[in-house]
């Protein structure tokens, strides 16, 4: 099985890697120390299994789960040092959870579960929480942008950009995830818009339209999505 380990503590990553390798069942695709590294690695490596630490800086394990694109969703095993998170992990409907320090016997059980799920060949679907803050990558740090501040989100070949009054920021989240997990609304194949930030909608002939946001930017509305917007807004 192709596994990815996500934990902010180096010794936890090393320990888990050693344990997984001992079982002889895993190829370790990588070890990530935070959520952003994990999102990138998942896009790149498309793992079968994700061993995810709950307690991490800035974006914790539960939040990360909500940011993973459904098409890339691996089988997720939560790893936590604290019992109190275990219940919550079940609510999130994960495959399994492990308590640190991880026991070999317990891990073997998890391996059997994973094997079974992979053999069944179903894409795992986990209910997860909405995204309140979108992690964006700046040159040296990570900026969290509250969804309420966002004007719109656009995507092109290079990636996905969050646009807000202060500027444009690159994010590793996909449009699909943002559409599902935030209150941003699709208005074009490549655009999501924040309804609360719309200043006006300019209607053109042949069922095309443009949206002007409160910070004065203009984005296109496609024919298909104009209908949906109309349905939502009754105009």
């Amino acid at each position, binding site marked *: 099985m192709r596994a990815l380990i996500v934990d*902010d*503590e*180096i*010794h*936890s990553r*090393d*320990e888990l890697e*050693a344990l997984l390798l001992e079982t002889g069942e895993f190829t370790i695709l990588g070890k990530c120390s*935070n959520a*952003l590294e994990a999102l990138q690695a998942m896009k790149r490596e498309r793992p079968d299994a994700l061993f995810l630490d709950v307690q991490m*800086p*800035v974006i914790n394990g539960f939040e990360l789960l909500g940011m993973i694109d459904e098409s890339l969703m691996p089988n997720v095993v939560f790893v936590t*040092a*604290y019992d109190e998170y275990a219940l919550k992990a079940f609510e999130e409907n994960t495959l399994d959870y492990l308590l*640190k*320090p991880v026991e070999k016997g317990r891990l073997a059980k998890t391996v059997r579960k994973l094997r079974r799920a992979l053999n069944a060949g179903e894409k795992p679907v986990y209910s997860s929480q909405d995204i309140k803050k979108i992690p964006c990558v700046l040159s*040296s*740090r*990570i900026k969290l942008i509250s969804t309420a501040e966002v004007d719109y989100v656009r995507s092109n070949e290079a990636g996905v950009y969050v646009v807000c009054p202060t500027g444009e920021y690159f994010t590793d989240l996909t449009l699909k995830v943002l559409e599902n997990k935030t209150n941003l609304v699709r208005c074009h194949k490549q655009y999501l818009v924040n309804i609360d930030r719309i200043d006006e909608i300019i209607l053109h002939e042949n069922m095309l339209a443009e949206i002007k946001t409160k910070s004065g930017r203009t984005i296109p509305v496609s024919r298909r999505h104009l209908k949906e917007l109309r349905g939502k807004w009754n105009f």
Partner: protein
Amino acid sequence: MELLFRLIQAMSVFLVIAYLYCKSPWFRPLTTHSLRTRDRIYLYFFFSAVSILGTYLGIAIQDAIANTRAIGPVLAGIIGGPLLGTAVGLTGGLHRYSLGGFTAFSCGLSTTVEGMIGGLVHLYLKRTNKTDLVFDPKVAFTTTFFAEMIQMAIILIVSRPYLDALALVKVIAIPMILSSSLGTALFVSIGRDQKNMYERVAAISSAKAFKIAERTLNFLGSGINQKTAVDLAKIIHEETGVGAVAITDRDKVMAFIGHGSDHHTPGSSIVSSLTKAAIAENKVIFADGERERYICPLSATCPLNSVLVVPLHIDNDVIGTIKLYEPRNKQFLNMNKMLGEGITNLLSNQLLLSRYERQKNLLVQTELKLLQAQVNPHFLFNSLNTIISITRNNAMRARELLIHLSNFFRKNLKRGNDLSTLEEELDQVNSYLQIEKARFDDRLVIQMDIDPALLKLKIPTFTLQPLIENAIKHGISNMLGQGIAKISAYRNDGHALIEIEDNAGAFREADAGDGLGIKIVDKRIKALFGKDFGTAVYSVPDELTRVTIKIPLEGHVQ
């Protein structure tokens, strides 16, 4: 000579009056320094009566009266001032004038003048700040002596025929001067004794009250229990000298000292209806032994006859009583009644205060315990997991960390004391940081800058640990980049400053109230060193949080 004796005889009547007067409540105002108008009016009537009585008790001689009328006006003057002296003199004089005789006018006039002379002496004493001499018999004697001489002179000058007046003065001068002067002096002497007695009683009761207060206040810190109750009862018994003292709680006798202790035994239930009433109604109950008697419900031969029951209360809750008893053959002194009530009230206040203090301390202690307890489980888990992992590759390193972990918890347990040295605090903090450093690896950088002269500085135990933990747990552990924790201690402007800084800048004012422990640290420092010391937080969001601890330097740096 016979005249002198008869005048002295008449004068003796005044001494009886003086004695009675001094025992009466009307005398009391004279023992204070300021006389009110009402007091002056009383004095006017009293001394006018004395003066007129002096005339009546006189002896008729040659159509005149040898008398001790002067005593009233002179005393009124000395005690009450010129106005009162003159008024009394005029009253006595007019009365004498109305009786007629060839000296009627001269005697009337001279009595008024004598009152004035007394008044002038009063003024003189007041001006020269010698008011304590008002009750000096020598002053009274001299003043009356002089005033009576003036009277004789006035009789000689004013009365006609002159020869009759001269003959009269020859007979009455010496007896009148001597007897009046002596009378005034003795009158004043009686007054002075009474006045001194009042003052002595006041001084004794104040001294007693202070002594009891001083002896009792110290050991009430822990509230009233069996032992403190006995000590307290002993002290009150010794200091007041009453027959017996008892202390009860709401249900039973806690201590009993003095007469009747053979059958009033500590630990027995309260049986006295007076005590029950005092507790139920939260009021002072007094059975003086005459109008109302204390009847011992336990023993027919109990010598106790009068009792004062004062409730001891905290806020409005009666928690017990203090009882003072006197036996049948002794009167319950008013002084002891006042002392009993005063001391009980004082103790009630003291109990309230000590309860408040105790609760305050308890609260801080509890908060501290909570803080200590809160930390450890998570820290312990994290540490063990780190060490488990390190054991795989580096057993020696793992061993070092286990020693640090052990040191950290030992210090946490051991420190029951209020104060520790900065060195001790840093030792524990260092163990903690070594483990966290291993856990976070290069995500945590520790910088220390400690003035070595401050290592012996005394600070409240468990001051640094919670603040460092905040910096790591709520700050650096939530950072994606490299976290820097700085600890510095230096001297500045006569005090010591200890700073704990992180570059996470996660501090938010709203969080500081609960769980961060900064407030408890601040509270404890202020409680120990005063409000000028404590913690201050400086924070720039996402850049830094710096907690500065200010501690006094004096006497702590070695």
